[in-house]
């Protein structure tokens, strides 16, 4: 199984989620994160004091999938999250050794 970690622009979240459902992805976990990268931060001015906000709001999606559909999922995420503008984000793929569904105790692929 793979844990696919995608860092995307916040307003793309719904599109990405909708892109994954047809692939049989039943669930995913999202967290609000801040990203630092090539994309330049915004400048806020308060009474003349300028603050460059280096960290931009991003959304991190973590989705565990079985190996079969991993590549489609990776592809689907990128397509849905892409604007072509700098700051679109990244996808990282990590191996999962084991997975469990807490409610039932089901393991691995059955747990997803």
């Amino acid at each position, binding site marked *: 199984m793979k844990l696919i970690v995608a860092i995307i622009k916040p307003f793309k979240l719904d599109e990405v989620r909708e892109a994954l459902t047809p692939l049989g992805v039943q669930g995913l976990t999202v967290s609000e994160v801040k990203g630092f990268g090539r994309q330049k931060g915004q400048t*806020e*001015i*308060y*009474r*003349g*004091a300028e*603050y460059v*906000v280096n960290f931009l709001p991003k959304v991190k999606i973590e989705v565990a999938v079985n190996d079969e559909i991993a590549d489609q999922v990776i592809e689907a995420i990128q397509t849905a999250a892409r604007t072509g503008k700098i700051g679109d984000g990244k996808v990282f793929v990590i191996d999962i050794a084991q997975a469990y569904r807490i409610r039932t105790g089901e393991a691995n692929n059955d747990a997803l």
Partner: protein
Amino acid sequence: MNHRFKKFAAGVGPALGALLSASAAWAEEAAAPAAAAAPTLDTGNTAWMLVSTALVLMMTIPGLALFYAGMVRKKNVLGVMMQSFALTALGTVLWVVIGYSLAFTGTSPYIGGLDRLFLDGIEKTTLSGNIPESVFMMFQMTFFIITPALITGAFAERMKFSAMLVFMTLWMLVVYAPVCHWVWALNADGTALGFLGAMGALDFAGGTVVHINAGVAGLVACIVLGPRKGFGTDNMAPHNLALSVIGAALLWVGWFGFNAGSALAADGRAGMAMAVTQIAAAAAALAWMFAEWILRKKPSVLGIISGAVAGLVAITPAAGFVGPKGALIIGLIAGVVCFWGATGLKHALKYDDSLDAFGVHGVGGIIGAILTGVFAVANIGGTAGLLEGNAGQVLTQVIAVGITVAYTGIVSFILLKVIDLVMGLRVNNEEEREGLDFALHGETIH
């Protein structure tokens, strides 16, 4: 509350003079079967002064507490509010015990006497003019409270709460009380007692007594304490400007009590004072907004509310003396100059006046005090200004400003240095990084 007003009134004759007298002696008479001249209680004026007192208290809590709290970082929000709240309680007790007596009694032009310690002699029937003296005392108390609270904006996010309490206790008695006496204390006949008042300086609602006094003390304090850790490098963006907008709005509304209430009556002068207060606040808000829009590309919320406060500060000494057109110009000037004071000036001189107590209240107060001498209209406040040919008034105003700046600057500096030696003014780095909310008060916003 302004001596000119009294003088002018006194000129009208003993009857009216009595009506406006603030002395206990007169009140005694009022109790006893009184001569035709004896002042009687006016329920309309009393109603307005009761309300004005409530409005000015509202300016400090929650008004100023919110205005300031919204501009600091999340970890210091409660600490900032705590300062305004604690000063409200502390100021009340100090005023009752001795402050009121020092400010408004006695016969010296420099400092009041002790006749009113613990408010001795203020009975239910004691009048001050045609309102109860208890009400006059309460109204003045709210000014005594807000002035130190304004100062806290200058050293926000780094001063020890204990040291703040000690400093303010001394400051209110050694700086506020005398300056208030200089400007507003009256003789039994309603003429000015304090030497600045007697000199003819105009200050309707506290340009010198409140704003210059607080602004300059704040400037001294932020320099003595030094800048916040990370000032100029770390991101110190305001945590929640929505709080500041609420605060600014309540300050604006409450300012009607501050300025129109300073007429001590519900009359045409109060009405005119309310009108010019509104006009100057609005003009300054727009002036700051457009100045920022042009120079910084975007009109900010913090900008427009800062402008409104700047206009309110500048019109404070002028309300009750100037008319609508004068107010419009005073507001426009105050908006632009205070914008510069809170941005250009501060950054040029590199002091860390965290929330611009000096940039807005000090600068705005000075502008207002001087422009009062320019735009004063004789048949509003009884004194003509430069535009009506009384050039001397401007000089009088400048002198009054100079004396206030010098006195509060020097005494505040001495007080702070002494306290720093005795107990230290600043929290340690660990506490400053952690934030005052938890470090000093054991609480956090969740």
